[in-house]
C-alpha cells in the first residue's frame, strides 16, 4: 500500500509527512518526525504516556492514526515550553519533585495543560479523575497532584 501525504501543524510548525495508513500518530511522531518526547508505554491507550493535544483535545496518540492528524493542530511535550522558558506546569513539576524516572512525565504535563486550559481551578478530586488516564508507577501521584495544584495557583496569579 502506498503512503499517505498528511499536512498538519505540530507545535505551531506546518509539517508535512508521508505515513502508512495504519501507522499511529505516536509512531509517526517518534519514528518519522523524531519527536521522541512522546512516549510509548502500552500502545493500547491504557497508560497515557503518549498523550498529546489534537485541536486542544487530550488524546492518546497511540489510538489516533497519523492520517487523522491531517488539518489538525497537534501539541506535543516539545511544544509546551516557549523560547522564554519553561511553562509554569513544567516548573512546578520540577519544584515539587513530581517525577522520579520521568517516562510518564511528558504525558502528565500535556494532560495537566489540557486540564488547566479547560478548568483553571480544579479541586483535588477533579485533578485525580482528569489524570486517571495517565499511569505513574514511581510517585504514588501525591507530588503530581500537588504540582498541578501549584500550577493552577501560579497561573491564576499570573492571569
Amino acid at each position, binding site marked *: 500500500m502506498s503512503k499517505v501525504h498528511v499536512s498538519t501543524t505540530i507545535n505551531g510548525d506546518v509539517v508535512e509527512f508521508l505515513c502508512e495508513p495504519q501507522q499511529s500518530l505516536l509512531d509517526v511522531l517518534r519514528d518519522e518526525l523524531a519527536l521522541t*518526547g512522546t512516549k510509548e508505554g502500552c500502545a493500547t491507550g491504557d497508560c497515557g504516556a503518549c498523550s498529546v493535544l489534537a485541536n486542544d483535545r487530550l488524546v492518546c496518540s497511540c489510538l489516533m492514526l497519523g492520517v487523522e492528524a491531517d488539518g489538525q493542530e497537534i501539541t506535543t511535550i516539545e511544544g509546551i515550553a516557549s523560547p522564554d522558558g519553561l511553562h509554569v506546569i513544567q516548573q512546578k513539576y*520540577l519544584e515539587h519533585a513530581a517525577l522520579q*524516572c*520521568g517516562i510518564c512525565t511528558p504525558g502528565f504535563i500535556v494532560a495537566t495543560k489540557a486540564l488547566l486550559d479547560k478548568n483553571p481551578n480544579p479541586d483535588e478530586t477533579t485533578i485525580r479523575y482528569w489524570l486517571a488516564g495517565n499511569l*505513574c508507577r514511581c510517585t504514588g501521584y501525591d507530588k503530581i497532584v500537588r504540582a498541578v495544584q501549584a500550577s493552577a495557583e501560579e497561573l491564576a496569579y499570573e492571569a
Partner: protein
Amino acid sequence: MAEAVDLKAIGTRPVRPDGIDKVTGRAAFGADLNLPNMLHGKVLRSPHAHARIKNVDVSRALAADGVMAAISGADLAGVQNDLAKNILARDKVLYHGHAVAAVAAKTAAQAEAALDLIEVDYEALPPVLSIDDAIADGATLVNENQHTNGDTSKPASNIAAVQRFERGDIEAGFAEADIVVESEHRVPTAHQGYIEPHACTATVNEDGKATVWCCTQGHFDVRSLTAAVLGESVGNIKVIPSEIGGGFGGKTIIYLEPLAVKMSQLSGRPVKMTMTREEVFRATGPTSATWCKAKIGAKKDGTFTAAQAWLAYEAGAFPGAPIGPGCMSVLAPYKVPNLLIEGNDVLVNKPKVCAYRAPGAPQSMHAMECVIDELARKLEMDPIDLRLKNAADEGTQAPYGPTFPPIGLKECLKAAKAHPNYATPVPEGAGRGLAVGFWFNIGMQSSAEVRIAEDGMVTVMEGSPDIGGSRAGMALMAAETLGVPYERIKAHVGDTESTGFCNVTGGSRTTFATGMAVIQACEDIIAQCKQRAALTWDLDEEQVDWVDGEAVPKPGVNADVKPLSLADIARGAGRTGGPLLGRASLNAQGAGASFSVNWTDVKVDAETGRTDVLAFTAIQDAGRAIHPAYVEGQMQGGAVQGLGWALNEEYIYDADGVMENPGFLDYRVPVASDMPMIDTQIVEVPNPSHPYGVRGVGETPIVAPLAALSNAVRDQLGFRIDDLPLSPPRVLAAIDEQR
C-alpha cells in the same frame, strides 16, 4: 561518621540535574535512539506454557522480504545457563511467552511478518501452574534435572532450594506461650509495572566491537551478562545506559541485548529491539506468587515466645525466587527467642521471576504482620504497643545472624504513636490497619570520579543508573563535602567505558554506596586542593585546612594569604600539578537496615466489594535524608505500589498457563483517582557506616502496605480475608460467605 552539625546542602530540596530534560521531552529513554541503517528486531514467543522443542527452522523467515538476520537458541554460543535459556529457549519452552527465536528486518512490520515464517515443532507437555501442583507427589517436573539444593541423592523435584533459619527451641517456645495465633496467606504473581517497556539498540563494528544502548538498572551487568551469553569478551562490549523509565528490580537482568548484538553481528547493521507491553507482562520478571504460613506465640503481656514461618515462593521457570530475603525479613523487626523460618524456591511454568522492590519481603511480612495484628486484637493491645514491646533495636540479633547496629524501628513506632493521624478517630464505618516494614539494604561495589573544570565547576561521574533522582543526591553530597553550592555541581551517569565499575542500582544501595564513593572522590579533591594551596603558599600540607569550599591556613599558622577557592585552585592548576581529578572506588560495607511503620484507613463498599483508601501514613527511618523530597517520593511511590498489589494487581492464568490480563486495562495498577495523598514522616537514626548517616530508602516502602491494607479491611469487616489481592470479587465473595 560526620555529625549532622551545620549541614548546608544535605536536607535541601533543589531541582534535580536531569529535571529539565525530563519535563521537556528531551531526555532519551531506551526506545528513543534511532541510528542510520537501523534494523528492527522482533522475538517469536512460545504459544505453550510447557513443551519440548523438537525443531526450530528459521530459514523461511531469513528468506523473507527485508529480513537480514534470524536466530534461535543454538545461535547463542556462550554459557548454556538458565539466563541464556531464558533469553532463547533450547530444548524446552517453560512458559507461555518464552522466547524461541528472533529476527531483524528493515522495518518492524517486515520483522513481525517474518515471525510467522519460523517453523517450530513442539511436543506439548502438561504445565505446572501452582505451588500446590508443583510440590504434590508425582508432580510433572518443570526441569527433570532439578534436585532440591543440588542434592542428586534425592529424586528430582520442583523445589529447587530450601532455606532455613532456626533459633532456640521452637516447640518449647510455643509451649511457653499463653496464646498462639496462626494463619496462611496466598498472594498471586504481580509485575513491577514500570511504564517503559524494555528496549535496546546494538551495533557491532567490523572489528567485532559492540555498542549497546539500553534502559537498565545496571549497565555493567548488561555488559558482563551479554558477553557471557554470546561467549564474547567483556572488553568487546560497551554499554551506554539511557534514561530509565522505571525498573523496581525488573531491569536488573537482560532479555533483548544478546539478541540485538547477535543480529547486528550477522547483518552488519544496527538492530533496535523494543518490547510491547504484552511481552513485558508475559515474558519479563514479575515477582513470585507465594503461599506463606505464619504462626506466633506470646505471653499475656504480649511478649513473643516463639514464631514460625513457612514460605513457598514461585520461581517461575528457573530457580531463583527471593526466598532468602523473604526469610530474612519475615521476623526481622522483632525479638523472638525461638524461631523457625523455612523458605521454598518452587519451579512452575511461568516467567522467571525477577527482583521487585524489596524482593520477597512484602509477601512474607504480609503473612506475619496479619498474624501479629490478630494477636494484638486477642490481647486487646494497641498494635503499636504490641510491636514496641517486641521491637528489635541496637544489639538485637537478626533472625539471619548479624547483630543490629543502631536501627530506627522503635523511633518509627514512637513517631507513629505520637502522629496526629494516628490520634484521629477512624471515620464512621471505616477500618484502620497498621503494619511494620523492613529491608536490610545492601552496599556492594561502586566507583566515582570528580572532575573540576577550570572555572571551578564540578562534574561528578558515576555508574549507577538514576532511577528516581539519585543524581540530585550525588550532587548534594558532593556539594556538602566540597563546600560549594549545589548549582556548581553536575552529576552524570557514565557508560561502561567513561566511568568506573558500579554494581546494579538495586537493593537500595545507590545513595548509600555510590554516594559514599562520591564523597570519597570529593575528599580526594580536597586533599589535592590543600596540597596545591600549600605549594602556592609555600606551606606544609598539614598547615592547610579546607573550610566552606576554600583552602585556608590552619588557625595559628602564620601566613598572610587570601583563601583559595576551588575555582582559584582550578584556574591555576596547570602551575601546581595539572587538572584536579578525584577518584574513589569501594566495596561498601555496613548498609543500614531501614524500618517503616504504615497505617491506612479504608472503607469497603459491601455492595460492590470495592475498597477505598481514605488515608495513608508512612513513617520510615532514612538514616539521613539527602534530598527529602525524593525520600518522600520513594515512600509515597512504594506505598501506592504496595496498595495496588494488595487491592487489585494479579496475573490471571487460564488452565493452559496463558496469562489472560497482559495489559494495563486488566492488570490494574493504581491510578490517581484510586489514591489519597500519602502522608509521610521521615525519621532519621543515622547509619554509623555512612559519612552522612544514609540508609537506603527505596525498598522498605513497599513492604508494609500489603498487611496494613489487609488489617484495615479486617478492622472494618470484623473478619479476615487471608489472601490478596482484596479485589472487589474476592471481598464480595467473602462478605457473601459471612452472611
